[in-house]
């Protein structure tokens, strides 16, 4: 069963035209990621990890080949449809947290709900999700620059989760944290995977990659090990 995978890449290439000649970041990649998987995407810098992330995160379209997310061909969608996919289907966790500096911790988590429902959250969901990632309630009125790295990443995970996405896309989520805090964050991600989320983790740290059930190794834009 499960004939249609959550994410399918068929013969995907991404070529950046440069003055010195075209640069191929992704070279004819075909790949399936099924619902409920915990996948680590590994590779040295310049291997195409970021380009791959952008494809999986519907931030970009391939030069050739097709990317399907939740059964839909990304290239044939309108800009607005892609925006709504990013809002509803994918949760992003970045290395540098990327919280909105002008909003409080609580508002950062509430923000995707406002994007989706076009109104302020009255259901208490934002607060509940913040709590579920172990974020101290008293801190929720603080702006991101008043929080520690670990606290910011918890807020970022809560933000990623608040619209109940199928996919959690984590780009070096522990890269800006000390080891101990990093493992705490990984524990949260493991817990979310157990709850049924599909987790895609980009990292170059083998210790972090060990948390995953499957490792995709990229090198020079090709999958060398899957």
């Amino acid at each position: 069963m499960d004939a249609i995978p959550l994410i399918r890449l068929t013969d995907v290439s991404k070529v950046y035209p440069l003055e010195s000649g075209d640069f191929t970041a992704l070279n004819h990649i075909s790949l399936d990621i099924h619902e409920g998987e915990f996948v680590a995407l590994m590779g040295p810098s310049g291997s195409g990890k970021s380009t791959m992330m952008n494809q999986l995160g519907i931030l970009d379209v391939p030069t050739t080949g097709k990317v399907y997310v939740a059964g839909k061909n990304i290239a044939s969608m309108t800009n607005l449809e892609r925006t709504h996919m990013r809002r509803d289907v994918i949760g992003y966790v970045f290395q540098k947290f990327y919280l909105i500096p002008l909003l409080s911790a609580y508002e950062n988590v509430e923000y995707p709900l406002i994007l989706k429902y076009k109104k302020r959250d009255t259901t208490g969901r934002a607060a509940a999700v913040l709590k579920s990632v172990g974020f101290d309630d008293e801190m929720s009125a603080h702006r991101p620059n008043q929080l520690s790295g670990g606290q910011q990443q918890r807020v970022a995970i809560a933000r990623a989760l608040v619209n109940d996405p199928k996919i959690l896309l984590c780009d070096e989520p522990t890269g800006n944290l000390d080891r101990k805090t990093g493992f705490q964050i990984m524990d949260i991600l493991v817990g979310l995977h157990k709850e049924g989320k599909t987790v895609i983790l980009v990292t170059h740290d083998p210790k972090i990659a060990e948390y995953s059930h499957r490792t995709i190794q990229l090198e020079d834009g090709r999958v060398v090990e899957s």
Partner: protein
Amino acid sequence: MRDIFFDLSVRSVRLNFLRSLLASIGIVIGVVAISSMGMLGTNMQLIVKDQLTTGINTIVITPDVVRAEPGSSASSNSGITESQLTDIRDAAGVNEVIPIDRSSTQFSIGSSNGRGSIYGLDPEDIKNIMNVSEGSPPRGESDVVVGATIADRFGLKIGTRIKIGEPNISATRPVVRVAGILTATGMSSGNGINSDNAIIVSDTWYSNQFGGENVYDQVNVNLRDVSRLSEVEDAIDKKVNRNKEVVRISDSSSRITSVSSTLSSLTTFILAIGSISLLVAATSIFNVMMMSVSERVQEIGILLSIGTEKGEIRRMFLYEAFILGIIGAVIGGIMSIIIGYSVVSAMIGNTSYFFLPESIVYIPGGMLIGMIVCIVSGLYPAWRASNMDPIEALRNE
């Protein structure tokens, strides 16, 4: 419900408070310039128009001397005759008809000599149409009223005696006594009587000294209702000029039209000068908005990557421009009242028209234009922000 994008804009403005305030000052200046200039022009127009319309209800009828037939003896009788006056009275109906004798004369006060106009009017008419500022209208036969300019130049007072006529003639000259001094009318008198430089005597005294009884140099018709001006003019024209053109009928409405149009183009001109300041304001708003966009590239990248629609990003920046506009327009509006009032009172010296709708409308008008300028200046920066590539924007440090 508060829009979160509005909150974001408010916070962004607050975060860069000084910068935003400075940008708004441009709008403040623009609004004040437009409002004050507009109000100045309008107040000027209203005042001049009001001064002019005090004389507009008068039709002035003068003999058509140009058309005196060659060879005939008509020139000796180039005045409005008693029968023509009757015709005019008939045509004028309820409106007041004032026959006027007029010529120019020399006169002496003590040892100084002068020249001016002399008007002969019915004493009742003098009382009715002249504004005596000092003294009283003539009561006795040889009482006169004099214009403000003459009174000023020769130091005339109530009771001063004036000899009328050429000084080098040996015959004794008639003497009149100043009973009253008239209010200055300036150029604005529309009734064909330039009383500032005139001596006004009774009609009987005039015809005793200058002759021409039952012949008048000018007839004024004072209308009760200005809107019937051309109707009454037509009636007089039909009645008096039925065979040939014997009188010329004129009024000062054309003068008002030309003065009004001059003033209104003057207002447009000063408004245009005021608008230049708004152009400068637009540049500074544009600049601040572009700074706000380029400082927040990464933030825009975050917003876009987690699923914010382009339109929402645009809205956020337009709100910001709108907030700057509101701040500028409100401060500008308040200052316009103060500055506009001061300018009008300093330059025109009369603020009685300031709060009339025609004048005060320039304040909301200026505020609205200021706001529009702000939002228009924010359009391009907002468009630019919303069209960023989220990947590129995120990478921006």
